[in-house]
């Protein structure tokens, strides 16, 4: 009686082994390291970069060990956290700021056999690792306004073309276009024209007599589309900017309808972070200078692309700027009739006008697009008190990303053709979009956790888990003796499984998450308490020991399931409604509930069976 078939023991052992393996990476303390990657993703970072960096470290007298060349980055391990910043400075100084990003990182020390099977340590949340969290809101009113402004122009020109003479066309409150007409015929003509040309607009007829109106607003669906576009555009732009910051594992994510979360773990210089995120538009369109142009009114720029630079070097462009990047509302890759790649560019209304004015009499000349990269370089200066201070110096670098012949007068929409490959088109479209935010954004939430507070939080978190666990272990042992020991083993297995599952899912550990683990420790023994008090009851009723064990486990089962499912419901709701910290708590709580069901029911039973099963037992140590 009370014996498990062999396969069940093996199953449990397998699960425990699985837990041990996947929880193990958390035991390996990561090495402080610096990571070197390229400014653009196309750059190849090879052994030569590593050699240069190591040389710089040697010269600076910083000891390092291990250098790994990955596909996109090079990683150099250091002996201590304190050496990270000096090492970063030394390497950045040697390699220059132009092409390489040097970031502080933590290099995993997980043995290769573990990482080969996908085992990796838990990620630490901002409250434990320190870092910056920004929540930004995309200003959707501005998007609507910008669009309505260009619609205003287009409505005017389309109505003129259709000979629907209007008294006036005005934009009111930045969101409604009012067109006024003198007669019913003109208005109905205008109405049918607008219906045909602008399906995105919702039209209403108002007024009487001499004062007939058509009022047009964007449809709900169109507004949503614009918002979606603006948010995803801003998201891309932010990602590019954040990459410049050199943060090891940044998070840039959309949240809700019009918000974007940016999380930069380990970032200490919040000022630099805010500045780079807030960087401005960085594109310029200029005409190519005529050969006879004066040097004072033209400038020479190089190509940004390596191969083009080698082939053509650069070009002279006029000083006069036609439009800047903030006028570009969209740039997408497309294909022309014969299947060649092209980039379709859309400008806002003002940009369209300026572009038209600049190009209609310049057909046949070439127009260049400049990409401006802004960088902040730390420069050491001596201030008035004679102290050394580090100042962020701003430098700008302009390079040509496209130089194409103007084939006709350009307007709000035009295209760049003659691109060699879809990949080139893709790159150009990305660069054209990368400069500008599609709509302004506002910082609506900002949280900064200093690195020392993060370290403190880890310490107190681990401490409370230790003391809480110890107290519960002692309490169970005193109350239930042998059974208590079984429950304690199960509790240990539960913790291992919880850590393993969290690591495997890539969940982030936060301080409330640790609180969730502590609470799980307290509540996980509940299943065992239920079973054991049931067994005691059955014994008191005069049931023989072995039967009592079976009855205890069987009778408590449905209660345990009911109790846990309801708690799980609550945890899921917590996850759904909560933000960052609350979600961390919800995740550990729900995973803890699930793993505790396994360990407390099956695990404990296995140990008890191993101990008492199949023997003649007079008395249970419970």
């Amino acid at each position, binding site marked *: 009686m009370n014996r498990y078939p062999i396969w069940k023991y093996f199953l449990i052992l397998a699960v425990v082994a699985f837990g041990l393996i996947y929880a193990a990476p958390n035991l390996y303390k990561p090495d402080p390291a610096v990571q070197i990657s390229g400014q653009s993703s196309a750059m190849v970072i090879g052994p030569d970069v590593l050699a240069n960096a190591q040389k710089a470290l040697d010269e600076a007298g910083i000891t390092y060990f291990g250098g790994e060349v990955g596909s996109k980055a090079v990683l150099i391990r250091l002996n201590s956290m304190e050496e990270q910043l000096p090492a970063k400075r030394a390497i950045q100084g040697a390699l220059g700021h132009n092409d390489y990003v040097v970031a502080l990182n933590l290099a995993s020390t997980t043995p290769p056999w573990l990482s080969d099977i996908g085992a990796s340590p838990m990620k630490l949340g901002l409250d434990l690792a320190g870092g910056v969290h920004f929540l*930004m809101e995309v200003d959707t009113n501005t998007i609507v306004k910008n669009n309505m402004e260009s619609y205003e122009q287009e409505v005017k020109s389309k109505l003129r073309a259709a000979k629907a003479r209007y008294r006036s066309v005005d934009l009111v409150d930045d969101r409604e276009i009012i067109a006024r007409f003198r007669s019913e015929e003109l208005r109905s003509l205008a109405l049918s024209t607008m219906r045909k040309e602008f399906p995105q607009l919702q039209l209403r007829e108002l007024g009487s007599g001499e004062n007939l109106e058509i009022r047009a607003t964007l449809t709900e669906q169109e507004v949503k589309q614009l918002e979606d576009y603006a948010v995803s555009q801003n998201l891309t732009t932010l990602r590019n900017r954040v990459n410049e910051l050199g943060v090891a594992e940044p998070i840039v994510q959309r949240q809700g309808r019009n918000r974007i979360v940016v999380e930069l773990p380990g970032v200490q210089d919040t000022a630099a972070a805010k500045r780079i995120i807030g960087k401005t538009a960085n594109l310029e369109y200029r005409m190519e200078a005529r050969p006879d142009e004066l040097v004072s009114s033209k400038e020479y720029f190089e190509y940004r692309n390596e191969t083009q630079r080698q082939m053509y070097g650069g070009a002279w462009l006029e000083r006069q700027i036609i439009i800047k990047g903030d006028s570009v509302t969209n740039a997408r890759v497309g294909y022309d009739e014969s299947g060649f790649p092209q980039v379709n560019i859309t400008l806002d209304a003002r940009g369209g006008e300026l572009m038209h004015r600049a190009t209609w009499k310049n057909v046949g000349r070439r127009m260049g697009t400049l990409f401006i990269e802004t960088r902040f370089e730390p420069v050491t200066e001596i201030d008035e008190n004679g102290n050394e201070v580090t100042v962020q110096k701003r430098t700008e670098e302009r390079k040509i990303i496209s130089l194409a012949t103007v084939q006709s007068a350009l307007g709000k929409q035009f295209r760049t053709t003659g691109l060699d490959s879809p990949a080139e088109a893709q790159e150009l479209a990305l660069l054209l979009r990368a400069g500008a935010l599609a709509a302004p954004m506002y910082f609506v939430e900002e949280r900064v956790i200093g690195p020392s507070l993060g370290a403190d939080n880890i310490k107190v978190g681990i401490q409370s888990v230790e003391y809480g666990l110890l107290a519960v272990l002692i309490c169970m042992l005193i109350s239930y003796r042998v059974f208590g020991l079984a429950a304690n083993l199960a509790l240990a297995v539960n913790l291992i499984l919880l850590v393993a599952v969290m690591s495997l899912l890539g969940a982030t550990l936060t301080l409330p998450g640790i609180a969730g683990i502590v609470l799980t420790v307290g509540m996980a023994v509940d299943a065992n308490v239920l079973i054991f008090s049931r067994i005691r009851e059955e014994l008191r009723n005069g049931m023989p020991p072995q039967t009592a064990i079976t009855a205890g486990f069987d009778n408590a089962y449905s209660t345990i399931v009911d109790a846990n499912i309801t708690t799980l419901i609550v945890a899921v709701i917590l996850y759904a409604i909560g933000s960052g910290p609350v979600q961390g708590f919800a995740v550990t709580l729900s995973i803890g509930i699930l793993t505790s069901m396994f360990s407390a029911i099956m695990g404990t039973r296995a140990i008890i069976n191993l101990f008492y099963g199949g023997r003649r037992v007079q008395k249970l140590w419970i």
Partner: protein
Amino acid sequence: MSESKVENGKITEYMGKRVYDFMRWRKLAGIVSVVLVLSSIAVLAINGLKFGLDFTGGTQVEVGYEVTPFIGDVRRQLDEAGYDGATVVNFGSERDLLIKLPPSVTEEETQVSATNQEVVTPIGDKVVQVLKAGSEGNVELRRVEMVGPQVGAELRDDGGLGMMVALVLVMMYVALRFQYKFSFGAVAALGHDVIIVLGFFALLGLDFDLTVMAAVLAVIGYSLNDTIVVSDRIRENFRKVRKAEAEEIINISISQTLGRTFMTSFTTLLVLWALQFFGGELIHNFSLALIVGVVVGTYSSVYVAANVLMALKISKEDLMPPVKEGAELEEMP
């Protein structure tokens, strides 16, 4: 009946275990619960919950001093720097300060657009600069939290909605799994616990922030856990024990589960104390809310849920497994 001992017409022992006459005090317990809930509501109405930064929006900065500062001095320095109306309190130790800045600062900060041309210094850095100038030792920026009022209001609404959804879903699950009278009992117990925890926070004027809200939801989960275990036993005994009044069956059930109720509450309280003492300032209120919740929840699973069952006149018929429809007809020739 051999399985139970009867004295003065009441069951005092069942299956070799002492049965306590819990329900004898049910009227008194009912009054106590009603008084507690009503006074909690009264405190909530008068004092109101002191919503933390997460819900109201605002800016706070936590700094660590190398040299113990005088709070009065710090306040004066902030005043002079233009942050009048800032509150400064010790946080954890006397060298750690928590500075809450007036709403105007948040308003200004949340107006900063990401396309702004000029270089923006984050508020935390500005405050630290001010404080560093006024202190002999170093001042370290430990934490900055700035939440726009709009975001705060949304979090608050979401939180309230979440609690409602939790209560409704749980009620449905209990009604499905047990019987509707039990779900009233369970929800009454939950409401009771949540209101008392909230009242406790309002009475002491403690900050109610996101983590405390998480704790309150966890209290819902915990208290439910307890209530379900007791209800489960009541259902079982109604089916098993013959010839006993509802009151006696409830007494038997509570007595049987009493050991487990105390043991689990005790182990949970143990870990919560560990959190309270070692978990640091940030989750202080979190663990406090849970401690109050677990204590009240233990009481409510004994007295509130059962009381509601008594009031709803729970009977054997409510709990018999449903007879299959048409089963009687089939037996007919």
